[in-house]
Structures are given as C-alpha cells and as structure tokens.
C-alpha cells in the first residue's frame, strides 16, 4: 500500500471551505495550503471549494484565515510564462504512464523511496549522459560536496527566509555521557519513533540537508577573488520537505541533483545560460522527451513572493523543462537559473576585485527517470531510437549491466 493511502486511512476529519482564488496562482496556493497547519493529509480544490483532510480536529476559522493569507501572498501582478520550445506527442493517452510501471521502487516513508534496477541504472545513465552533453561544452571542474550544509551558509544565501517550509534539519545527540547512556537504554527497550522525541536531548542544530547542490560551490569560495570565468560540476543528494505534496508522483523528499555552476562576468554567465538552453532543447528533441521549456519562478514561501516572482519572470532568470508525466500532469526535470550577483555578494566572491555573476543548471535525476518511464515505458527496446542507442551504448560499458 502506498504511503499516501496509509496516511489517508488515518483521516478522521474533513473540512470544506469556500474561498475564491481570484487572480492568485492556483498551483502555488494548492501547494502552500499543505503547510497551513500541522497534520494536513490532503488538500483538494474544486471550483472555489477547498477540501482539507486532517489527522486531528482543527478550528475551521483558523484554517480559513490562513488560507486567505496564502491566497493573498500568491496573487501576482500578472507576470506570465514564456514558452521557448514545446515537444508534444500525437496523443498523450497513447503514452504508457507511470501507473503501469512496476519499476518505481518502494516508498518507505512519505516522499522517501528505495529504488531498484532498472530505475537505479537509468538514474546513473542520466547522470553520465548529462555530463557527456554539458561537460565538453563548458569543461567544468569536478567537486565533491557533502549532502548537508551549515545553516549559516543557507542563511547568507537567503535560502532560510525564502524557503523555510523545505528545510530538513540535522542534529546529533547532546554530547553528554549521561544523555548518551539514557538514549541507549531507551533505544534498547523500545522501537523509537517521533513520539519519543520529548525524551531525547538533541544538540543545537547547525546543519541542514542540502536544498540544492550549488550552495556549497559559493560557500567554499567565500571571500575568494577568482581569476577567470569558471564552471564547476557536482552532484549531491538534496532534501526538500513538501508536507502532503509528497503524495504527488515525482515529489520526492530526497533526490539526486546534478548541477553545472557558472561563476564569472555577467556576459559569461548569460552566454553559458543561452548555450545550456540550446543543449536542453536539442536533447529533448533527440530523445523525444515530451514537455516544454518554459520561464518560471521559484516557489518563494515568503510574504514578498509577488515582487520576487515578477522580478524572476521579467528578467527571465529561471527556465524549467516541464516534462509530461502521463496520464496526468507534468514535472520539472531540470532548471536553468541566473542569480545575478546575489550569491557572490552573499559570500563576497569577486573576479579581479569586481562582483561576479553566477548561474547554474540542475537536473533532478529521479524525476528525469520518472519522465522517461512514464513517456516511453520500462522496456528500453521500445524507447525512441536515439535514447535507446545512447542507453544501450552506456549499458554495454556498465560493470553492473
């Protein structure tokens, strides 16, 4: 049984609220509604009617007040998305879809999956394939980063204030032998769960799971003066907590994020972004990855969403490839971002004494694999010719194949 179904069986309370979206962004509101109060298991919107399923009784007025706040937050001044390219199948209904696939692994907790072959192999193939496409073009230097990052680094980058809902903190036990012995005794007596947290003394949190790979790249160059335009690549496991939104296919709490990061003059960063988008469009066409390359904005959770979102759209700071995930919906499998001097200022990185610009392109490898399986099925013999050829060539040299 899927984790979502298990959770919904625990539903004891359901609330219907009537509240119009007005001009607000429906997807953002629906997403953010999962964070209104603790214990929301599911949110649905039909017309102006919102239905909340919760684990415990809540005050409907409180729920409605918070919903109103979120709708106001995500009402924007009409910035619209630009479609750079679109690749659609003749009939979406003819695509296999994910429900028919038996390769999606095991969901061990909401948003946390254990993946098996062939999914695991496809993820490794995709990482290699992205490096082959983007590596020769930008000759990035390779770096290895931890999967966690100091909270201080994310604070400098304004990530903590922009995306508080996504953060997953890391802690260890308070280093006191009495505390360690008490914990060990408790652990030997029972199977520990969240309900036991009040009996455990944790040390103050200093680390957060990476929300994105690229923050390490800026943090490690804090106070550096780089001598030339630079490209860097790294892959880490990233975490984003998305509450009940994890029940949607493709929204994993932990995922593999391969990034190529660019640091240098504004012209260099703009040129690399332009080339990145060309390579993405070329790859989508060659592999028949159905979807669209569109301008986007980050889902800022903060009250200044409208101005930040408009800024991103108007300056075309963010593009995403939204791949179809049949039978319903689409999922962003990669994003290309321009940050201007935001991160170089946050970490005091200069180039020959001048502030630099940064940009990045990031690939969510599990989502990419979901899209391939949903669009072309689990049997690679039936994949589009170029995708099939690339995959089989890679498999021929894979020691695990």
């Amino acid at each position, binding site marked *: 049984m899927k984790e979502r179904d298990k959770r919904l069986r625990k539903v004891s309370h359901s609330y219907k609220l009537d509240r119009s979206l007005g001009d607000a962004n429906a997807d953002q509101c629906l997403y953010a509604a999962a964070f209104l109060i603790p214990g929301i298991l599911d949110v649905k919107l039909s017309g102006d009617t919102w239905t909340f399923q919760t684990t415990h009784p809540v005050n409907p007025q409180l729920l409605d007040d918070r919903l109103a706040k979120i709708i106001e937050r995500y009402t924007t001044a009409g910035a619209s998305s630009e479609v750079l390219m679109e690749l659609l199948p003749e009939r979406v209904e003819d695509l296999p879809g994910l429900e028919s696939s038996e390769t999606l692994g095991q969901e061990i907790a909401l948003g946390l999956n254990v993946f098996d072959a062939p999914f695991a192999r496809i993820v490794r193939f995709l990482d290699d394939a992205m490096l082959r496409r983007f590596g020769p073009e930008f000759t990035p230097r390779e770096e290895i980063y931890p999967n966690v990052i100091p909270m201080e680094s994310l604070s400098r980058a304004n990530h903590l204030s922009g995306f508080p809902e996504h953060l997953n903190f890391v802690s260890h036990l308070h280093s006191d032998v009495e505390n360690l012995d008490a914990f060990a005794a408790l652990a030997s007596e029972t199977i520990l769960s969240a309900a036991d947290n009040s009996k455990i003394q944790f040390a103050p949190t200093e680390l957060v799971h990476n929300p994105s790979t690229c923050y390490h790249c800026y943090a490690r160059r804090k106070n550096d003066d780089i001598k030339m335009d630079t490209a860097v690549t790294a892959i880490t496991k990233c975490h984003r907590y998305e509450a009940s939104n994890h029940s949607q296919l493709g929204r994993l709490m932990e995922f593999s994020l391969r990034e190529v990061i660019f640091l240098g003059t504004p012209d260099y960063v703009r040129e690399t972004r332009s080339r990145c988008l060309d390579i993405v469009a070329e790859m989508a066409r060659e592999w028949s990855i159905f979807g669209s390359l569109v301008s986007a904005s980050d889902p800022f959770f903060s009250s*200044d969403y409208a*101005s930040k979102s*408009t800024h991103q759209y*108007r*300056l075309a700071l963010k593009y995403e490839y939204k791949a179809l995930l049949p039978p319903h919906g689409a999922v962003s499998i990669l994003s290309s971002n321009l940050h*201007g*001097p935001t991160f170089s200022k946050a970490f005091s990185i200069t180039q020959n004494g001048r502030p630099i610009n940064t940009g990045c392109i990031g690939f969510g490898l599990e989502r990419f694999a979901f899209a391939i399986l949903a669009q072309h099925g689990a049997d690679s013999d039936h994949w589009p010719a170029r995708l099939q050829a690339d995959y089989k060539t890679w498999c021929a040299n894979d020691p695990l194949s």
Partner: protein
Amino acid sequence: MDTLTKIRDFIRNQAKVAAEDDLFTDDVDLLDYGYLDSFGTVALIELIDKECNVDLSNVDFYDAQFRTIAGIAAAVDERAGQKAS
C-alpha cells in the same frame, strides 16, 4: 535636483553603495552588478511615481534601457515631457 541625480542618489542609498565604489556609474548595468534587486526596483518605481509623477509599470521597467541610471533618467524625463506637452 535633476532626475539623474535624484535616481543616482536613491539607488546609492538604497543599495548602500560605498563612496569609493568606482564601478557605480550612470552606465553600469544595475541588475548585473546588484545595485537593484526586486525590492529596490519596487521602491524606485514608487519614488519615480511620487517625485516625478511618472508611472513606470513593471513591463516598462524591465526593458533594456532601464538597466542603467542614465537610461532610467532619460526615460523618466521623456515621459514627463510628454505629459507636459
């Protein structure tokens, strides 16, 4: 105070530009070099509306000509002139 000075002073204060910052000129790209961000842009539009009685919608504001102090000042003066005539 002329429009150019008004806008230059506003951005200098808003972005806390150091006196010795020689990159900060009337022709520097304000967005590329971080002298204007989303907050600064909104605040500058409000200032221009209030002080110069010129409404620069967001759509106008992100055009290439608005990325420099000189470009913004010229556009504001041009719109103010059109209003006056």
